[in-house]
């Protein structure tokens, strides 16, 4: 159902830009996707996000909304079609926000540090951060999913979107390392969840291939661009 004028400025490799797209898909909202060049900044992007100059930006009825999780919350509040993304209970909402913030503030830093690590020790610390975090998220999943398929329960929710959007990059990191960070032994629930998330109708066309991400990462590490944000 097309609901007003919706544009989404994104970038294929950005986990952050994926998030509002998943949310719009969940709500069955049509939108015009505008792929942004990371090399040169598009005028519309600079005009719509003058503070950060970054993707994603959602433009709804000519009004810009910035910051991926702010956009996801906006989509949840502005569109009544489809499932709720955040829980309705205020405590459950706080828990969902807590884990999304943990993923973005702490866990994500470890993930992107793996590639930037200059020594074996730095790499081990970064990998440790990733696997410790996944262990915590495995426990959180068991508690929050209440036996259903997603952190959000029956349908994809806020934490699913926050964590799931990193799966392309996580798999790329696993390929480089030659080992799995989400695996059947240490994180059995997340292993099944990851497959389920990536094959969900709201997500399946959006997840970038690991090979493409690895090529992109090589380009970033050669110093040409800032990491995707």
């Amino acid at each position, binding site marked *: 159902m097309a609901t007003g004028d919706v544009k989404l400025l994104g970038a294929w490799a950005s986990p952050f830009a994926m998030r509002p797209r998943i949310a719009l898909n969940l709500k069955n909202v049509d939108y015009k996707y505008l792929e942004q060049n990371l090399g040169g900044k598009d005028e519309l992007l600079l005009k719509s996000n003058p*503070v950060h100059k970054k993707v994603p930006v959602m433009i*709804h009825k000519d*009004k810009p*909304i*910035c*910051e991926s999780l*702010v*956009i996801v*919350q*906006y989509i949840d*509040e*502005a569109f009544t079609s489809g499932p709720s993304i955040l829980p309705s209970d*205020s*405590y459950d*909402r*706080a828990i969902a*926000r*807590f884990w999304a*913030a*943990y993923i973005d503030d*702490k866990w994500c830093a470890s993930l992107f540090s793996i590639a930037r690590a200059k020594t074996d020790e730095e790499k081990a610390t970064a990998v440790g951060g990733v696997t410790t975090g996944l262990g*915590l998220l495995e426990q959180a999943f068991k508690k929050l999913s209440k036996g259903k398929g997603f952190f959000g329960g029956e349908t994809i929710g806020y934490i699913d979107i926050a964590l799931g959007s990193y799966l392309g990059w996580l798999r790329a990191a696993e390929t480089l390392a030659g080992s799995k960070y989400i695996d059947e032994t240490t994180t059995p629930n997340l292993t099944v969840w990851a497959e389920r998330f990536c094959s969900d109708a709201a997500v399946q066309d959006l997840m970038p291939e690991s090979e493409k991400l690895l090529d992109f990462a090589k380009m970033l590490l050669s110093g040409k661009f800032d990491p995707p944000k």
Partner: protein
Amino acid sequence: MSKDEVILLDFWVSPFALRAKIALAEKGVEFEARQEDLLGEKSELLLKSNPIYKKVPVLVHNGKAVNESTIIVSYIEDTWPTPSLLPPCAYGRATARFWADYVDKKLFDGGSKIWRSKGEEVEVAKKEFIEILKVLEGALGEKEYFGGDSFGFVDILAIPITAWFYAYEQYGNFKVEDECPKISAWIKKCLERESVASGYPEPTKVYEFVGLLRKMLGLE
């Protein structure tokens, strides 16, 4: 009707804990503030309620713990809806959350860089901090508060950090009033509110505390 039990794990100088205290006061919610000794030993309740970060504030509402100050303020808003701290429309709320995120990412860390730096880095840190304040001044515009006519979400998140401005000014050798007069005026306006004034630490005491932190970090 059973009464709510609301406990806030607190530290007198923490701007993050002050956010929660202001929000609870604005909502008229009675709570017990328990002081943590963050330079000494942390309480068992703190370590149990916030095992990942082990930080204040923690809000314990009828035995359930909520962590992270911005999330706590959102929780307070969701649980005790009146008077509301966020605008009613989705776009207004998104705008408030955007500026809340900006304050969270930039303001405290930007100020901290000033007193954590040495030599030439101090000047660089000061200039970056003033830039951050100017962006916030732009967001404030001609409004009384970030929330518009009423004191709200973004005001609550930002005002506690201003208690540290005196320390930043001393170490950075500048005055917020000269660089960003609108922000200065906004600070004065917010301090007229009982909810803010009652928990706001003395800036000179914050400055002393920063001196202590600097000694601990080997900066003096």
